[in-house]
């Protein structure tokens, strides 16, 4: 038993309570939701929040990952292990299957598959008839996300219309949709990267090993460290270095870069996060650097 002594919640307790409230609103209002789980740190927090929201019951939704086929094995292994530990159903749908169906067509064979996840996601939504997708996106990640609602409406084509969003007042969330439309729900909208790490520390959440400092071959390009892997081999003329790095965010190999770091524990990562001088996506995402508005463009097309 724990007792509370203060009359107001600490910031982490408040954020946790809000996220649990949102998860329960999705479960209460939507007949067929799904929680997107990639094995990344934000979605790992989402699973803990779902446990706090629904245990001792089962989650009132399955977990789903849209796999580009270009994810780090440490992360997909972790994804499978975590879902099994929780005893919850995990659905994996693959961008490669969409490519085989011809619904995803790459411009060049080495084009990043990251943005094509939208197509596979929309196909999976249709396949299972999901009317709500719960995700771990945060408003502090990117400017276009700062204006996204907690319950964000998508039309039949999965499109987001930033100029025509539902007003969201008090704690009264409107997750209603007609058949074919869906809601994207973001329970940790109000969390920052630092909040996520503080929560991971407090809850002692296990993470895939690549979040911690390790030595990895990389090539320095445009101020980012590009990992050298089977998917992203070194090109002629590249100088390959072995550098001690960690990932601040994990996703498709072709567009996620690690940062130099010797932080090998959550406590050290917290200290680095609190004193860093570069934003999370700025340091790590090759896909956001195309233009000032690239995230907004992808979101309008159905991206998470």
């Amino acid at each position: 038993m724990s007792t509370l002594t203060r009359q107001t919640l600490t910031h982490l307790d408040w954020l946790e309570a809000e996220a649990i409230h949102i998860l329960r609103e999705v479960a209460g209002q939507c007949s067929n939701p799904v929680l997107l789980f990639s094995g990344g740190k934000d979605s790992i927090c989402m699973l803990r929040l779902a446990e706090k929201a629904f245990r001792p019951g089962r989650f009132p939704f399955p977990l789903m990952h849209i796999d580009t086929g270009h994810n780090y094995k440490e992360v997909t292994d972790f994804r499978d292990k975590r879902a099994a530990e929780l005893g919850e159903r995990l659905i994996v749908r693959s961008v490669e299957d969409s490519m085989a169906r011809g619904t995803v067509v790459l411009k060049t064979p080495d084009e990043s598959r990251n943005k094509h996840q939208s197509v596979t996601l929309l196909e999976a939504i249709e396949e299972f008839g999901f009317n709500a997708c719960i995700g771990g996106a945060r408003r502090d990640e990117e400017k276009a996300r700062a204006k996204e609602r907690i319950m964000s409406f998508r039309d039949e084509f999965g499109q987001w219309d930033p100029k025509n969003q539902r007003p969201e007042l008090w704690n009264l969330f409107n997750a209603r949709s007609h058949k074919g439309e869906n809601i994207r729900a973001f329970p940790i909208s109000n969390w920052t990267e630092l909040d996520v790490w503080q929560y991971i520390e407090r809850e002692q959440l296990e993470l895939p090993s690549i979040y911690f400092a390790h030595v990895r071959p990389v090539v320095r390009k445009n101020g980012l460290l590009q990992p050298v892997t089977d998917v992203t081999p070194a090109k002629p003329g590249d100088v390959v270095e072995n550098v001690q790095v960690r990932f601040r965010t994990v996703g498709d190999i072709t567009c996620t870069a690690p940062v130099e770091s010797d932080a090998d524990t959550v406590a050290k990562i917290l200290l680095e996060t609190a004193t860093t001088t570069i934003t999370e996506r700025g340091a790590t995402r090759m896909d956001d650097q195309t233009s000032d508005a690239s995230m907004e463009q992808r979101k309008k097309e159905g991206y998470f």
Partner: protein
Amino acid sequence: MSALENLPDTDHGLLRFLTCGSVDDGKSTLIGRLLFDTKTILADTLHAIEKTSAKRGMTAVDLSLLTDGLQAEREQGITIDVAYRYFSTGTRKYIIADAPGHEQYTRNMVTAASTANLAIILVDARKGVLTQTRRHSYLASLVGIPHLVVAVNKMDLVDYDEAVFERIKADYLAFGAKLGIKDVRFIPLSALNGDMIVDRGERLSWYDGPTLLEILETVPAAHTEQAENFRFPVQFVCRPHDSANPELHDYRGFMGRVESGEIAIGDAVTVLPSGRISSVRDIQIGGVSQLRAIHEQSVTLLLADEIDISRGDMIVKSAEQPQALKEIDATMCWLSETPMSPARTYLLRHTTREVKAKIAKIDYRLDVNTLEHEPVTTLAMNDIANLTLKLAQPVFADPYTDNRATGAFIVIDESTNNTVGAGMIR
């Protein structure tokens, strides 16, 4: 102020506040300054806005660019929707709701204000108290924001003259008294130069009050300091039916958030609408028990008796019951571009409860600039009116001024599922 060089050892919770003003008042610059001076802005973001400032031919970095969110807005150079920003000082986390200042203002400001506990009202020192200052203040009071900071900005453009500040303060107090907001503070500042925001600067030495950040750090984070009645709208019912675990066979957990007040094991409770009485057998988070739960906590309640309860019901303390209302008098803000159709049936959501609603009568529309009453037969976007709604089933409500959670509702148009109205019960 070194923001996060040390991790917090004390936690003063989380404060949500709202900034009201137009682009011309320097609102975006003020927010940019808060983020910049608390070291929330990181090098790559700063570099990006430096580039944009240079591209637009500016000589200094335009901090207002930090808060320009969407492509459409960047093209038009205006903010068109509520955006949320975050910063932390190490002791307190802040969520800023940044509401824009042109024609959709009422709707956006009501939206932003609904979750805020403090509002910063920006006044241009050269212009003094304007119609929009009155409108912002009225809306802040309408939505029940307990703390108001009138920030007299652009002091640099009036030579940091104390007399200008005092005149604006007197003008404001002359009308502000009528609004009934108890905690109103005044502060002179220059967002452009950073005077009196995080640092005091050297040009406002005649002002001996706190800086803006000092106000934010010390204002109570809770919406009210008063003891409130316990209100627990049920969001979801947990019945595990886990045959592998016989202990869970009879488990019935009522999941929700303590919207107000607090509850402890053993407390006598009444379930609405059934009126059934029981007591709290356990309070859990994620299956782990605790002795009590306070305002804003999301918990699961287990009761001593087997009672049929579902989403939309409300658990309250037996000694503190709300009113069951089938007709509500409310102040409502219309949010939709499609005007209200008085003959139609709408869906009303109050806490976790949804009921059909019709407009019984519209008393008057309120002019948010003059506060005058005007007779109307319908409502258009941004209109605020006093009206009466008839409900198909009762809601369990308190007046909004007593309880923000059980006094508020939204109106949904079922044909589009859009949220078209926001109401406060009188």
